[in-house]
């Protein structure tokens, strides 16, 4: 704000409001029961992912042919799988793969979705028309089909999941954000900015996109949850995470065949995926209400 | 049909919107409720109709023709609404159903409250359209094809088709231009008087109030701060809030005082 003041005086007041805003946002999320649940689950997910990089209870690669499909023991809290590996260690390591996939898929979906939304509200009738038709046409292709096509040249890999989900969710995001973007594009404040000589690009960046943020927040959080589900599905189909790479989908896929005999081993990854997906679905709503100054009066009061 | 309100309070999320309001409208009387936006005047209308938002809680008493409506069940309210109480809304563009033609729109309350055959209904709709000054050829048109003034005429026809005994008009002219405003107010007054019904007219504008009502209540921050004959209030307002509203209205009409004299 006070950029021309220079010196230390500027840095402190410029940073402080941001920190205060963050505090208000966190408090607003925490104030709601479902927000607390989502925040705890997501924080745990992040923490476990980081820890798994340096430590897991057992090495992922220590197999033990004499102790396969074990129930919980002191050495293996959640038992062992079909190769005798520690289930808990694999689930912990899986957390980081799923986190990576969710973050990258959401980032790709966000960039693609925003670019398409921007194109759809373009002043040029050609650009807006073509992009709208494109989105409507492409959105009918299921994410799974995109993944299967990508897997032909790429093989099973994390990239297949990220790209397939990113494209699928990005298209969906654009479709859902479009009405809000159009509303903003036709608003008086955009008219006023244009009448003052603002360029369309600056209006897009400063007015239109920020006003689609409530939708984007909810939708991207939902997408992160769907990406976790998609990882499980695609890995089970054999086009997702390659064997040997830990992921929740991998844990599910290797144990689900024996669900009749060893149901407990399937239970853990299934439970984790469910809890995380529910947390992400809830988180979007709570986050939107917390970060949007229109919806959150406490945020408006931060000077 | 008379309105008797006493000790009416409405809270939304613990915030008082209407506080301890007492007011009355006698049979065949036209009474105004005037206040600036946020004064709670629309909330009183909603409370009378049992249409308060879900988060709102109302206490006190409001009787329409002797029937208590605060805390009344949906059957009681539905029996009143449309049949004995007609409502004219502020924005006819959004209070009319966009997929119903004008004729069907006006006919709907008749279908709900009366057991008439199609021919009778059609006849009544046509008669009503003539009364509100809508050409019969408009019956097949849809709301978006009409001007704001025509839309509000449809709104009035819909409110009056069942011959209600009470009309609640919530800022019926605010969205219209000045000439149309005048026509709509005059139309409403003549129809209400012709039917011998009573009317509660809600507005922020004293100059409209003067034409529409004989008596009025001034609302400020949820409380009644003044009441009396509309003409008297307009001529010499005593209470500060009334004076503010009256001065504004006078200054914004022709032949009123200059900018500097107020």
């Amino acid at each position, binding site marked *: *704000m*006070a*950029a*021309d*003041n220079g010196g230390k005086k500027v840095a402190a007041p410029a940073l402080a409001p941001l920190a205060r805003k963050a505090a208000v946002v966190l408090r607003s999320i925490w104030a709601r029961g479902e927000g607390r649940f989502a925040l705890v689950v997501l924080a745990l997910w992040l923490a476990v992912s980081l820890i798994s990089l340096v430590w897991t209870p057992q090495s992922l690669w220590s197999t033990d042919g004499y102790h396969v499909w074990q129930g919980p023991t002191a050495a293996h809290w959640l038992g062992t799988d079909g190769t005798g590996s520690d289930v808990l260690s694999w689930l912990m390591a899986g957390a980081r793969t799923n986190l990576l996939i969710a973050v990258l898929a959401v980032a790709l979906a966000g960039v693609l979705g925003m670019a398409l939304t921007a194109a759809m509200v373009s002043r040029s009738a050609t650009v807006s028309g073509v992009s709208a038709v494109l989105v409507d046409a492409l959105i009918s292709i299921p994410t799974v089909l995109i993944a299967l096509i990508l897997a032909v040249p790429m093989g099973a890999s994390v990239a297949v999941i990220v790209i397939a989900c990113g494209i699928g969710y990005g298209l969906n995001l654009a479709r859902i954000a479009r009405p809000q973007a159009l509303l903003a594009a036709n*608003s*008086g*404040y955009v*008219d*006023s*900015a*244009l*009448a*003052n*000589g*603002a360029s369309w690009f*600056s209006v897009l960046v400063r*007015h239109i996109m*920020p*006003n689609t*943020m409530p939708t984007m927040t909810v939708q991207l959080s939902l997408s992160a949850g769907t990406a976790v589900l998609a990882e499980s599905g695609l890995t089970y189909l054999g086009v997702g995470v390659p064997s040997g790479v830990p992921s929740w989908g991998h844990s599910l896929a290797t144990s689900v065949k024996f669900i009749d005999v060893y149901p407990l081993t399937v239970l853990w990854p299934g439970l984790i995926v469910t809890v995380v997906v529910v947390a992400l679905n809830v988180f979007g709503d709570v986050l939107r209400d917390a970060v*949007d*100054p*229109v919806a959150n*009066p406490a945020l*408006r009061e931060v*000077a | 049909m008379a309105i008797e309100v006493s000790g009416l309070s409405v809270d939304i999320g613990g915030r008082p919107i209407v506080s301890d309001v007492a007011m009355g409208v006698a049979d065949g009387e036209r009474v105004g409720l005037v206040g*600036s*936006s*946020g004064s709670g005047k629309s909330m009183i209308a909603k409370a009378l109709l049992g249409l308060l938002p879900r988060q709102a809680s109302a206490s006190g008493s409001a009787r329409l023709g002797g029937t208590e409506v605060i805390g009344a069940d949906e059957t009681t309210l539905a029996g009143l609404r449309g049949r004995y109480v007609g409502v004219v809304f502020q924005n006819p563009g959004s209070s009319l159903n966009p997929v119903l033609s004008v004729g069907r729109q006006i006919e709907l309350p008749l279908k709900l409250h009366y057991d008439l055959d199609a021919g009778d209904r059609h006849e009544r709709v046509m008669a009503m359209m003539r009364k509100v000054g809508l050409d019969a050829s408009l019956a097949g048109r849809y709301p978006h094809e009409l*001007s*704001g*003034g025509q839309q509000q005429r449809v709104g009035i026809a819909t409110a009056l088709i069942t011959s209600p005994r009470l009309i609640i008009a919530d800022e019926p002219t605010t969205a*219209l*231009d*000045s*000439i*149309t*405003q*005048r026509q709509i107010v005059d139309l409403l007054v003549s129809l209400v008087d012709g039917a011998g019904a009573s009317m509660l007219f809600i507005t*922020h*504008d*004293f*100059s409209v109030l*003067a034409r529409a009502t004989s008596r009025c209540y001034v609302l400020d921050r949820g409380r009644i701060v003044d009441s009396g004959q509309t003409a008297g209030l307009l001529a010499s307002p005593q209470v500060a809030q009334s004076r*503010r*509203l009256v*001065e*504004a*209205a*006078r*200054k*914004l*009409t*022709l*032949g*009123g005082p*200059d*900018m500097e004299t*107020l």
Partner: protein
Amino acid sequence: MTETHELLAGRGIGRVFGRGKARQAALRDVDIDVRPGECLAIIGGSGSGKSTLARILLGLDRPDSGTVTYRGEPVDGPRSQGYRLLRRESGLVFQDPFASLDPRWRVERSVGEPLRIQHHGIAGDELRDKVADALDLVGLDAGEFMGRYPADLSGGQAQRVAIARAVVAGPSLIVADEPMSAIDVAARLRILEAFATIRKARPETAIVMISHDLGVVQHIAERIVVLHDGSVVETGPCDEVLGHPKSDYARQLVAAASL
């Protein structure tokens, strides 16, 4: 006439909407002048074409016939000289203040927007001071209102913020399209006062006020143009139009604005 005296001039402006059977003339052969520093009211009912005329005069819509000039330069598409001058030297006020303020921007940012667009690099105290001046002009306390969001303003306050935004860059022309019809009667006075203050503080700024109500423009308009069904039916000094309306339509308007 050797040089143009008008700030903004429209000649023979026509505009048609729709095609085929639905074809409807919104404006027919309208001539209009805005002189430097004057307050001109364009009066008409809904459907009279007054808002369309305003958009055309501002270069935001193109007429099907006729020409618009600003400072003698043609306003004819984004590349024309008149259009560019207009963008730099005009401010706009709309009917619905909440729709015309970005709900996610604080008052300070909204009011300062025209300055940031037109004077690249303006920032800090200079920007703040000008925003504070503009808020002061419309009767809003800068210290109290700068940090607020539109959601925490009343309709009248929001409209005055929008007026502050229109005036902040020191325009030669302010166009206000029904700035009071969505506002309470009591708050309308504050808005009228804001315009009166602007007239005094910035006598070189012309104001075009579009309204359906003669009552609200009587105190500040010097000249009135009455528009009906897309045509100018009457034009003249304020007192004359109010006191001795010549056309039937103007007489109706006068009657409708009297108590």
